């Protein structure tokens, strides 16, 4: 065998061993692509299944969403209608509130006026009570004077009776003296002249003549209550109206009825209708004299 052949054999052997080593190393470290493929395929299948499930869930969710949308749309429509109704109610309530506020304001002013009127009437009542107290005081003093006057009158009546008895006695003495004088003068043919008193006779007291005068009050009928036969007139105690006064109601030259005053206030008076010829109306004239 030649040397070259030997060298070639050795080189061939070394190169084959080297190549075999490389191949073995490569094969030993090579990846198992089939297993990877199977794993990827399984993973893809599972992912496909998940995608299908998710697609189904998405479709169901879309369906539910549509149903919820329809339901919400109907609810929105009903709520809009309800909102319109509530808005209308709110507007009505606002209007009622404004009217009630106006009423409250009017009632407040009325109450304020009422309080003022009450205060005035309270003041009037106070003044009237003071006047009443004064009148009662005057009445007490007048009663005292009356009692004193009555006592003086009784005393004077007793004096008058005494004087009358004395006068009677003097008259009787005068008559007796006249008779005695006549007895003395008749035999000589004379008679006694009538005695002239030194003190002139006083005339008896006479009552003073009273002259009637018209009251001449005039006013208008302000209210008529035909149900109770009552009427109110526009003049009161400030004008001189008193309870028990009788007013004649006229319209033009026509007599309608009489009003007998049963209650008089400061600026108005209330009375009962009497002698009704025609029904009186507001604005008819009332007067004390026709």
């Amino acid at each position, binding site marked *: *065998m030649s040397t070259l*052949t*030997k060298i070639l*054999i*050795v080189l*061939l*052997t070394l190169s*084959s*061993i080297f*190549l*075999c080593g490389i*191949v*073995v190393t490569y*094969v030993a470290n*090579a990846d*198992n*692509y*089939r*297993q990877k493929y199977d794993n990827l395929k399984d993973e893809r299948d599972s992912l496909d299944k998940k995608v299908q499930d998710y697609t189904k869930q998405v479709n169901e969710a879309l369906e539910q969403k549509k149903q919820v949308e329809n339901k919400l749309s109907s609810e929105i429509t009903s709520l809009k209608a309800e909102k319109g109704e509530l808005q209308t109610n709110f507007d009505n309530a606002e209007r009622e509130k404004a009217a009630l506020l106006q009423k409250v304001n009017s009632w407040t002013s009325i109450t304020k006026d009422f309080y003022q009127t009450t205060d005035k009437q309270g003041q009037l009542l106070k003044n009237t009570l003071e006047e009443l107290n004064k009148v009662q005081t005057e009445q007490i003093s007048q009663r005292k004077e009356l009692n004193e006057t009555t006592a003086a009158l009784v005393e004077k009546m007793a004096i008058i009776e005494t004087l009358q008895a004395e006068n009677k006695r003097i008259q009787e003495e005068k008559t007796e003296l006249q008779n005695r004088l006549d007895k003395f003068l008749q035999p000589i043919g004379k008679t006694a002249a009538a005695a002239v008193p030194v003190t002139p006779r006083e005339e008896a007291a006479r009552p003073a003549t009273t002259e009637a005068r018209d009251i001449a009050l005039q006013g208008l009928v302000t209210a008529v209550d035909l149900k109770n036969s009552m009427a109110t007139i526009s003049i009161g105690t400030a004008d001189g109206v008193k309870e028990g006064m009788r007013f004649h109601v006229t319209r033009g030259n026509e007599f309608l009825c009489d009003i007998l005053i049963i209650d008089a206030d400061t600026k108005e008076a209330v009375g009962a209708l009497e002698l009704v010829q025609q029904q009186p109306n507001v604005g008819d004239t009332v007067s004390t004299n026709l």
Partner: protein
Amino acid sequence: MSPDGQSRGGKATTSNNLYTIILALAFCAVLATAALVAYKCYFQYGTILKIP
């Protein structure tokens, strides 16, 4: 494979059997490598020569 070389050169030389053994080793290595590759191909892809 003959003992001619030893007698002709006069110095010590390797016998031809040694080269035969070396070639056998190389062949065995190649064969084992081929078997390993075939084994791997069969158990990983299910075939030896075809592309799966």
